[in-house]
């Protein structure tokens, strides 16, 4: 669907007083299990990213140009599709693999678990780490275009390390794998490719993506030490088992 049209419709809907839905979305983006104090201090735990132009940045640079070479291919199109801009789009991608539609309406418990966990990983994880390093993204560094050019303007100035998309994709993959273990292989493969798409797209260096995966794993572990997370996880498992079609 055309992005301009989508934005137009959303604005219209908000303007005509279904403010409840907008407030809902805003509220969903601020649910949490952890606090700053209870989160792993990943801005300091993760290794520093390779400095631009240094010897250990050579592979990052190589991978960017490998991605650029893929323009016009199916993998480029997939990278564009996976360059999601909303949680709902991420859920849509993973729904195809999971076999049930993940949404607030259809799977409220799974939705709640995914949202709060991802909110933790982003607010207390990637956002803080991005502010520490403020690293330039590859497309901006090389002055090239990405697989989704309309998003470039807002991302030109920094925040490359680590990748928020990859943190979200890995978190969702791990959580859904725990809920639906029989789908683990496909879910984790999707999560992996979802991260690689950021590199192919040109929005992230390979090291941004690798360390976002590690960061997500750290958060995933600490979340398991949280009572509310554990209780919501049990509800999500129950919800999946009641909705799945194959025995």
């Amino acid at each position, binding site marked *: 669907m055309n992005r301009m049209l989508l934005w137009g419709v959303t604005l219209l809907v908000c303007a005509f007083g279904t403010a409840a839905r907008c407030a809902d979305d805003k509220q969903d983006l601020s649910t949490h299990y952890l606090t700053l104090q209870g989160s792993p201090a990943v801005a300091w735990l993760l290794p520093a990213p390779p400095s631009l132009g240094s010897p250990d940045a050579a592979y990052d640079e*190589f991978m960017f140009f490998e991605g650029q070479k893929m323009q016009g291919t199916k993998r480029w199109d997939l990278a564009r599709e996976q360059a999601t801009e909303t949680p709902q789009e991420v859920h849509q991608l993973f729904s195809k693999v999971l076999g049930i539609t993940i949404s607030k309406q259809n799977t409220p418990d799974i939705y709640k678990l995914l949202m709060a966990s991802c909110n933790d990983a982003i607010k207390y994880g990637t956002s803080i780490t991005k502010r520490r390093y403020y690293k330039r993204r590859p497309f901006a560094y090389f002055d090239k275009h990405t697989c989704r050019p309309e998003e470039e303007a807002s991302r030109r100035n920094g925040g490359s390390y680590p990748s928020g998309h990859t943190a979200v994709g890995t978190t969702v993959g791990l959580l859904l794998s725990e809920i639906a*273990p029989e789908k683990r292989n496909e879910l*984790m*493969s999707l999560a992996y490719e979802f991260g690689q798409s950021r590199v192919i797209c040109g929005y992230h260096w390979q090291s941004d993506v690798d360390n976002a995966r590690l960061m997500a794993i750290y958060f*995933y*572990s600490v979340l*398991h*030490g949280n009572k509310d997370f554990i209780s919501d996880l049990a509800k999500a498992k129950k919800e999946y088992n009641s909705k799945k079609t194959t025995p």
Partner: protein
Amino acid sequence: MKKYLLIAFGFMLAAGSLNVAFGQKLHFLTEADAPDVNVVIPPPPENGSEAAKRDEFYYYEGQKMRDTARWRVAIYDAVKGNNHHNLLTSFEHPFGLMINPEDTPQLFKLIRGALNDVETYGTSVLKKQYKRYRPFVYLKQSGKTCEPQKELAYSVTYSYPSAHSARGMLTALILAEINPQRSNLILERGYEYGRSRVICGFHWQSDVENSRLLAGVIYSALHGNNAFLKQLKKAKDEFKSLYESKK
């Protein structure tokens, strides 16, 4: 008849506790619920590739640390010892307890089984699949590792991925869940334990990085396993009683 049954029962009990003490066969996962690591873990870099060049860069960075304090930590981390002695001892400050079969039997059993799982269903499978040579072998750097006396034995085992690193990271993920308040130090120790392998010259950087990913995947799989969850509860209760009393 009764006498023989009693003796047999006694023998089984002894064998059971021996099993815990030596832990050779203690597992939580089975073939049925283990992930297919060939699908979810990427292959190692090909010889001569840009990624392999990156690996070489990190090998020589490790060599630069020869005879530093960090080199000596790497030597300590390289030694397995009985019951993963060096690994578990290194978590004493980060976790806040010394984990061993005598003082913390439940925690020890939990870790022991999980580490057997990550090897049997993880590192062993991948090592056999890829048969990658270790850096000191491939680069013809014999005598340059942190444990030259072990090089002969290591030269016939495979590099990708690193079993030490997978064990170190998985231990950290489990302990961080049990004591989330100290997750920073716990996760850092797990990370550094893996880095020691690169410094030592026994593993490539990519061996260690993907071991951490493997640890995350196995950690996720364990949380879908009832035997693990049962033991986790026992370990958490043990932790509560020991840790609270020593605080």
